[in-house]
């Protein structure tokens, strides 16, 4: 009787770990990506890296790339255009990231519009987080 109760407690504690929350966010993006494209075959850290480093030229002139603010090194601290430090994006260095869906969605909305001039797709969002999880 005791063991399932304890297991339940441990599982509940795990569910509140940032990394576990990042994983459940990814599950949501995977569902959305599959709904948009039946051929969706999972997220790719490589595509995420390409999105992060790209200079698409379709966004606002002051923000040509994600790396404008986050720097080219995901493990390094970034800087806003107003000079404020941004904690690194790599999950290994900033384990609290990608845990709050409303926060993540707010920044994808803003930053994809600033850099790409459009919203990111669910697949792009998942690729980006998958890439940051490998860093």
């Amino acid at each position, binding site marked *: 009787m005791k063991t399932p109760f304890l297991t339940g407690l441990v599982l509940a504690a795990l569910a509140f770990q940032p990394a576990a929350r990042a994983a459940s966010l990814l599950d949501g993006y995977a569902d959305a990506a599959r709904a948009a494209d039946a051929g969706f075959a999972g997220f790719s850290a490589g595509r995420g890296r390409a999105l992060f480093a790209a200079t698409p030229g379709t966004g606002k*002139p*002051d923000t040509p790339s994600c790396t404008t603010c986050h720097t080219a090194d995901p493990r390094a601290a970034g800087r806003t255009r*107003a*000079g*404020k430090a941004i904690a690194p994006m790599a999950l290994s260095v900033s384990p609290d990231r990608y845990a709050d869906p409303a926060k993540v969605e707010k920044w994808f909305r*803003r*930053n994809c519009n600033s850099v790409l001039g459009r919203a990111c797709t669910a697949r792009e969002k998942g690729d980006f987080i998958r890439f940051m999880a490998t860093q």
Partner: protein
Amino acid sequence: MHPNAFRLAAALLVAGAAPAAADDRYSPVSDPVTAKECGACHMAFQPQMLPGRSWTALMGGLDRHFGEDASLDDATRDHITAYLTDHAADAGWWSGKFMRGVDDSRTPLRITDTPYWIREHMEEVPARAWTDPRVGSKANCLACHPRANRGDYDDD
């Protein structure tokens, strides 16, 4: 003289002798939503630094915020707009310093475009300070005013 009255007079004299000491102080941002959201990209500037109409204009164009999309959901935006306009430079019965030289026809969108800010910085600050990589931007108050977050600019 009554000793208490003497002490008060002495205090007034001291205050009078150092008029600049407590001059550049502003109430810090007291609303946690404003502090968090504005403070995500830059120091949350004190609302007393722009007229209410400037805050309304800024908050109405967050998707084009000085070259960036800084949009918020409507409820958060309205909450912050109310806080900023309630505490703006012209919100009280007596206009704040940042209204100096701002006539009714002007709606400055940058604090650094107000005549008061310009006067306070242009004479004292050498041009090389603005190009110093540790400063990076005129919006980076904290680079030179380490207590600016608390509304204290009395360090120059």
